[in-house]
Structures are given as structure tokens and as C-alpha cells.
């Protein structure tokens, strides 16, 4: 199944939470606002603290990466579809910005920290994302970047 089909309805949804759809401009201020909106929406109410913190970290990294890279040259919107299922938070993120180099997601390997003078000041984003999500996929379709992943709810 294409990751862009609607998420399968779980056999026994914990609560009947409708998926959350959001469209935001590709700016860092809009990303901050969208995160606050997601957490105020009730979509994640009752989730473990672990899922809540992972969701905030991952969504911030994913969305700010789009702002900084996909929309580095020109402005555009980001579309989000979030579904809270038995598995966890199923996230689909779309933008019409520049494609990922080589049409592949960055590996996001852990960077050895070394001495103070050599400490990395960036490059943590994909490491954090890959540390916290499952079923990460990327597709470039019809001029759009389509990223999909699940933030697992270990307590479900």
C-alpha cells in the first residue's frame, strides 16, 4: 500500500480521534505555531510523556528541515496529516520544495563528539528523527516530497 493512502483504521481505536490535517507556510515561526496547535488539538491527549516529547522533537526537526532545505530557495506550504492509532502517531508530511539530494533521506549517523573545540553545532536533526521513529519512508512524487513515519506508542 502506498504510504499516502489513509492510515488503516485500527481494529479497536482507543478513542475516536479524527486525523488532524494542517497546512502551514514553510517558515520557522509557522512551524513553532503548528507544533503548539497540534498539542492543543487534543489529538495526543492521554498519550505517554514519552510519545509527547518524541512527537514534539521529531515534528520540529522534520518541519524545520523542510523550511531550511526544501524551501531554502523559494517559499511554499507544508501539509501534515497526523493520525493517532493503536500503533502510535502516524505522520505524513508533504511539501513541494526541492527534492532530497539523491532522492534519499540523510543517514543521520551519530557524530562522535570529541573535544570541546570540535563539537558539532548541527547535524543532529536526522539522528534525532531516526532515533525516535519507525517505518520511515520518503518518496518524490509529482514534484512533491512525501515523508511518512510512525512515532510508536510503547504503552499501547
Amino acid at each position, binding site marked *: 500500500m502506498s504510504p499516502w493512502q489513509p492510515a488503516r483504521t485500527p481494529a479497536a481505536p482507543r478513542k475516536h480521534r479524527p486525523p488532524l490535517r494542517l497546512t502551514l507556510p514553510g517558515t520557522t515561526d509557522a512551524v513553532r505555531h503548528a507544533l503548539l496547535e497540534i498539542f492543543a488539538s487534543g489529538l495526543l491527549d492521554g498519550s505517554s510523556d514519552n510519545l509527547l516529547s518524541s512527537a514534539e522533537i521529531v515534528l520540529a526537526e522534520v518541519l524545520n528541515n523542510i523550511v531550511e532545505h526544501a524551501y531554502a530557495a523559494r517559499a511554499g506550504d507544508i501539509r501534515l496529516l497526523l493520525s493517532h492509532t493503536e500503533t502510535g502517531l502516524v505522520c505524513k508530511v508533504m511539501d513541494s520544495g526541492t527534492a532530497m539530494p539523491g532522492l534519499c533521506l540523510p543517514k543521520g549517523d551519530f557524530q562522535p563528539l570529541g573535544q570541546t*573545540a570540535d*563539537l558539532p553545532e548541527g547535524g543532529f536533526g536526522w539522528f534525532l528523527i531516526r532515533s525516535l521513529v519507525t517505518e520511515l519512508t520518503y518518496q518524490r512524487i509529482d514534484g512533491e516530497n512525501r515523508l511518512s513515519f510512525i512515532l510508536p506508542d510503547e504503552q499501547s
Partner: protein
Amino acid sequence: MELLAKERGAMLVIRTTQDRIDAASAIQFKDRMRDITGASAAPRVVLDMSNVAFLDSSGLGAVVAVLKALAPDRTLELSGLTPTVQKVFRLTRMDTIFTIHDAVPDGLRNVG
């Protein structure tokens, strides 16, 4: 990005009043920290992050940049990390680089 600073002997305690150090505010945070630490000669700088509910990789990069700018003669210590901020430090293993206090060392609370 408002930061409140108070110098006590060899220690400069800086408290953040904004609750997010993220891609939208990281550069401003770094600039303000540079101004404040540049105006003091205290060898030990303690950043009280108890008001910061969220920090992303840009915010982490800014905190690391402040540490590097103070080194090798001065140190940056952190205090009062909230759970999500703690998680970012733990995952990136930056918790092994910084001295992290549960609360600002004695006698240095109520900065500003």
C-alpha cells in the same frame, strides 16, 4: 529572546524567560548569550533552563556554540533541564559534555 543575568563572584547565572529555544529563536539566543557573556569576565557561566519547555536541534547547536565560544578559559554549565530538553541532550549524548545541575547552585536562585 529575553535573558536575565546576574553575576555572583566567579559565577554568571543567566536565566531564559522564553519557553522555546528553536529554529525560530536560536540565532537570537546565541547572539544575546554572546553579548551577555562578553560583558562579564566570570569564568563559570550557568544557564538556567528551567523555563525552557522545548529545545530543538537548532537550539542545541546554539547552546553548544556558546560553550565553544567560552572555551577553553570559561565554562558553560546548565541547570533545570525540563524533560523534553533532557531527552534531546540524552539522545545526542550532549549530557556527557555539559555539567548539568538539577537547580542553580546554592545562593544563586532568583536571578534578575
